[in-house]
């Protein structure tokens, strides 16, 4: 604890967290719960956060809402800078994991980098809830009409379409490959700016041919 305080105390540019930690965290949790219980629904968070780059405000809201000293956080290479680390450490007190496999929450700065899902903890058959939550930032995220990526499964009445920009080519192939391991798996939260869209492990995802 003293090391955390010293490290952040000496950081002059530390961005502020939630204006009201109790009520903002509750509001954002409900937004995340809405997203998680309606996969493929793009939810606007209105976080009011201005986190250090490249952390998006929605990704920062996820961290401030759900992360604390019990949940090691892993940041990918482009996310892992001093400002982001200091921001997360100060506001959440989370340990920053050395390797992806130790993380409860992982933050990927750009969906164009390969997901490589098996590097994360996927949980066990007895305790699948230990599977990591992976936040993937993307350059564009919008509800699709009949195009983009087709979601179906629990939480979705029939089918939902989402247009997710800038993902690595084999992102879905890699993600769908680990669906065979269900109930083990990863729960993915896409963020873009202030918006969020969840893809829990139970969701069936099909990519439609580009127009």
């Amino acid at each position, binding site marked *: 604890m003293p090391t955390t305080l010293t490290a952040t105390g000496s950081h002059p540019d530390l961005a502020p967290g939630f204006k*009201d*930690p*109790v*009520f903002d*965290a*509750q*509001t954002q*949790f*409900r937004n*995340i*719960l809405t997203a*998680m*219980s*309606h996969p493929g629904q793009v939810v606007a968070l209105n976080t009011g956060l201005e986190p250090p780059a490249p952390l998006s405000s929605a990704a920062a809201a996820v961290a401030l*809402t*759900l*992360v*604390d000293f*019990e*949940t090691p956080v892993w940041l990918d290479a482009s996310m892992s800078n001093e400002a982001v680390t200091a921001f997360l450490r100060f506001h959440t007190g989370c340990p920053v994991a050395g390797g992806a496999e130790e993380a*409860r929450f992982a933050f990927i700065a750009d969906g164009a980098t390969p997901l490589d899902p098996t590097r994360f903890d996927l949980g*066990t*058959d*007895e*305790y*699948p*809830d230990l*599977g990591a*939550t992976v936040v993937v930032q993307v350059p564009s995220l919008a509800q699709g009409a009949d195009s983009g990526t087709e979601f179906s*499964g*629990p*939480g*979705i*009445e029939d089918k939902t379409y989402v247009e997710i920009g800038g993902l690595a080519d084999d992102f879905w192939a890699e993600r769908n490959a680990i669906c065979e391991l*269900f*109930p083990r798996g990863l*729960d993915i939260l896409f963020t873009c700016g202030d918006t969020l869209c969840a893809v*829990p*492990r*139970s969701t069936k995802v099909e990519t439609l041919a580009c127009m």
Partner: protein
Amino acid sequence: MPQPSSLKAGYNFAYLDEQTKRMIRRAILKAVAIPGYQVPFGSREMPLPYGWGTGGIQVTAGIIGPDDTLKVIDQGADDTTNAVSIRRFFANTAGVATTEQTEDATIIQTRHRIPETPLQAGQILVYQVPIPEPLRWLEPRETETRKMHALQEYGIMYVRLYEDISRYGHISTAYDYPVMVNGRYLMRPSPIPKFDNPKMDRNPALQLFGAGREKRIYAVPPYTSVKSLDFKDYPFQVQKWDDCCTLCGADDSFLDEIITDDAGGRMFVCSDSDYCAKRRDAGHSGPNPGEAATKKIGEAGDAA
């Protein structure tokens, strides 16, 4: 910090501390991501005993915000001790609006019933669960039941239902009837009557389950398949009554039998008090209550 006027001083919003809420919130999200799987969580001591809804209260405390409207029912009724005290607990510690109207509530905490009024998308139903593990009375060891869930090895439950049929000619389980969630996890729906089981299937509301003593949270996301276990030649059936509600005349709701005297007199009334009151307000009425109250069970009334 906005502080609603009815808030009791000295407590954090919704009673629990923020770290506990975060832990509960993480458990809820994993529960939603793996429908029907029981997520272990660090259940806290609450200011009421186990068995009075500590699990449901912790789940509600984890999700509730100042803009929510809370309804609490106990066996369908809004006005029983458990429902009244839990509703007051959240009015005091979270300052939220409370209601008895099913359609006005954003969060409904329930003990042992699902409201008769169909739930809407966006509503959250929080169940109080005494024993979350459906296989517990068949296999006492947690290590074993965990393995059985991992391997989807549920034959033992079918054997139990089969034994019912061979002994009684039908499946005698009338409440807490086991269900299969999303074709994967066997789940205990909490002690709701099996009459309510079909309402869980593809329900547009989010259903969360909290077991305080057993330290488990599980969930059924909206529009998720929930199938009651049965056999092809013994399909799942809900209970039916020959009578209708004495007060409102409903023949489609779950009825409680009320003994009215010591001579076998009885009447049936809706277990869902909000549903019954709404029907009466709309002008429905049942058979003459006086007449129903004197109805005898067989010849019990004549026994000397």
